[in-house]
């Protein structure tokens, strides 16, 4: 008998892709997608149940379908459609509580996978340069999505204590990027001119959507030989990009703003609705955050296909050129080089140097 998987948050593009992906898994009999709103994209033959995970009805869904694997994807930073920050927070926190309560009552659930975020580490100048899964944050996130994620993880830990027979896997994803990314950071990178914090160049890490799906598939299956897929894992692509590199590779100029003004500008932009520039987002774009992925490689046995730079390049391609595309800048530099009289003799050398 194959497994029965329930996925929350399928109305989002990533959730939809995950459902379609699980459908193709021969070991899985049925996939049940749950969300409060019907998805705009096809679910590839999966069953969709319109249920709000903030209501106890979710327990009935679990019992009715005898679900054995739950993938909780409905922990996100952006509201879907209408609704503001309050409803997002409620879905994240109350939704998780309800879902975990339902799982605790369900005798059939064997495995729980929760999508979390590396923002639980916060971002402070006094933090070590690289976070491991056990690093205690120096300053807990004070609000926003990061605080939701911290609370969600707290409830999940409590659940894991109460139901030791359920394998619980918490995946802390770095900033998810890719052609269909809808995170606040992706919105930020879509601004024609990116406001940055003057005097800070944060280190950022990205993980590609395809890798997100791969690692979720790995986590909801039985562990492979020699690996363990329950526990908490940081998921990020290899390598690091600084914000200045990102802006140059995107070809979008930056506008450095003094830190106090950034907070003000952020709230102004949020009011206008251009982008969700939450305080936690500003902290990330001030101090940056890098996580260690040793556990992901050695314990979980997962090797991402995209490095941070490749994930970003894929995202940049989908965004189209900015105001200063890198190709144009490079061409301009080459033209300057061609205009210099000195250089002509050293053409061959230049090719070598370039």
């Amino acid at each position: 008998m194959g497994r029965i998987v329930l996925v929350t948050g399928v109305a989002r593009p990533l959730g939809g892709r995950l459902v379609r992906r699980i459908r193709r898994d021969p070991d899985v009999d049925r996939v049940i997608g749950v969300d409060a709103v019907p998805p705009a994209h096809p679910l590839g033959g999966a069953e969709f149940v319109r249920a709000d995970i903030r209501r106890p009805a979710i327990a009935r869904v679990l019992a009715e379908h005898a679900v054995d694997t739950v993938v909780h994807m409905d922990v996100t930073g952006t509201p879907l459609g209408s609704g503001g920050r309050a409803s997002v927070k409620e879905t994240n926190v109350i939704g998780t509580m309800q879902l975990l309560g339902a799982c605790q009552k369900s005798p059939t659930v064997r495995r729980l996978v929760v999508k979390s975020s590396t923002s639980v580490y916060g971002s402070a100048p006094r933090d070590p340069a690289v976070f491991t899964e056990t690093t205690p944050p120096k300053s807990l996130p004070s609000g926003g999505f990061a605080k939701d994620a911290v609370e969600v993880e707290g409830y999940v830990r409590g659940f894991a204590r109460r139901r030791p027979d359920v394998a619980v896997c918490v995946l802390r994803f770095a900033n998810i990027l890719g052609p269909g990314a809808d995170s606040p950071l992706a919105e930020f990178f879509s601004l024609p001119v990116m406001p940055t914090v003057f005097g800070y160049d944060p280190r950022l890490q990205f993980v590609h959507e395809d890798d997100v799906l791969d690692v979720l598939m790995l986590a909801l299956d039985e562990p492979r030989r020699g690996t363990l897929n329950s526990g908490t894992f940081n998921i990020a692509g290899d390598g690091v990009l600084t914000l200045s590199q990102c802006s140059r590779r995107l070809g979008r100029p930056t506008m450095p703003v003094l830190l106090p003004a950034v907070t003000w500008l952020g709230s102004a932009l949020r009011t206008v609705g251009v982008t969700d520039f939450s305080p936690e987002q500003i902290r990330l774009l001030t101090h940056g955050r890098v996580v260690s992925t040793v556990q992901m490689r050695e314990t979980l046995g997962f090797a991402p296909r995209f490095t941070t730079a490749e994930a970003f390049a894929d995202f940049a391609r989908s965004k189209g050129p900015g105001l200063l595309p890198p190709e144009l800048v490079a061409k301009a530099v080459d033209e300057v080089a061609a205009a210099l009289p000195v250089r002509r003799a050293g053409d061959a050398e230049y090719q070598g140097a370039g």
Partner: protein
Amino acid sequence: MADAKVIPFDDDRSRGGAQRPSRRRSGGAARRSAERAAAAGDGPVREPGAAERRAGRTRGTRDGGARRMEAAPEPLPEDRPEPRPEGRAEAASAQGGPAAHAPGAAPQPEEGARGDWDRRIAGGLAFLRRRLTGDYEVDEFGYDAELTDQVLMSMLRPLYEKYFRVTVKGIENIPAEGGALVVANHSGTLPLDGLMMQVAVHDNHPAGRHLRLLAADLVFHLPVVNELARKAGHTLACAEDAERLLRRGEVVGVMPEGFKGIGKPFSERYKLQRFGRGGFVSTALRAGVPIVPCSIVGAEEIYPMIGNARTLARVLGFPYFPLTPTFPWLGPLGAVPLPTKWTIQFGEPIPTEGYLPEAAEDPMLMFNLTDQVREQIQHTLYKLLVQRRSVFF
């Protein structure tokens, strides 16, 4: 101090094979410097000002190398050609000789000069192109090797060579490969000593090693400063970061005196403060890397701190606010450091791999090792002070 008096002036003997002049970079860079010198000897080519400036820089190191060589009583190592070359061009090509082949540098100086300029400009443009398109790498600490080599070190070098005229001794005590923890004294109100130590390792170490400094968290609070510090390879002074760097086989520099050392009054110069809680020793032990004690003489006098405006410091959030004879009375002019003559001596490494893993948890051993490192640095400081002719020369 009693010991220090019997140490003869030519302590350079202890440096063994280190008498060869500072070889700043290997490979193509050496060749370029050779050709650059050739260009300078040839008279004005295209940008006379720049050529002169560069020539001056080359000459500066040559002189520094020569001076140190004269101080050395032993015969020169065999791999060096005749010790006193005539022209600068030849000298430079001799310098480049062992590191890289310099084809056609000496025979056709004019041709070489033009080619060199073209290559320099082309290299600069290629660098600019990479920077502007974001096509460069940083490591997980934010260390931007290319920017550090090409820009940040070049910005610090005049200070290092011309202003403080740093003499480096015992660079061979830093291993050519594998991790090492360089522990140095800290002084001078502003952490210039750390930066000079970084340039010293970068420009003098034969294996071209980079020193990764551990900095106070204040550095990472300040805008601009934190950005530059990260790009220059510095990171926060915490056990996690230090151990991560050491396990990657990097040379890590730490100044365990911290603010107690850098912000001590002038009357206590060259008296080492408490070495923190000795966390650096347990980190080195856990990573199994040697500890290299380093003594820096000259940094204490750059800003003679005669007072500390505590209230102002508290208001500004700094650990101290220095009052020197010139600062803040002369405004920005008072912030110019005094041009003291510096000596940086790297001492004999203290091995740590002989200890068991649980030794890092043994407080008694930690205290003993900390004291050993501290004593060695203090002793070398006294020795160097006795040898010093004057603060400024």
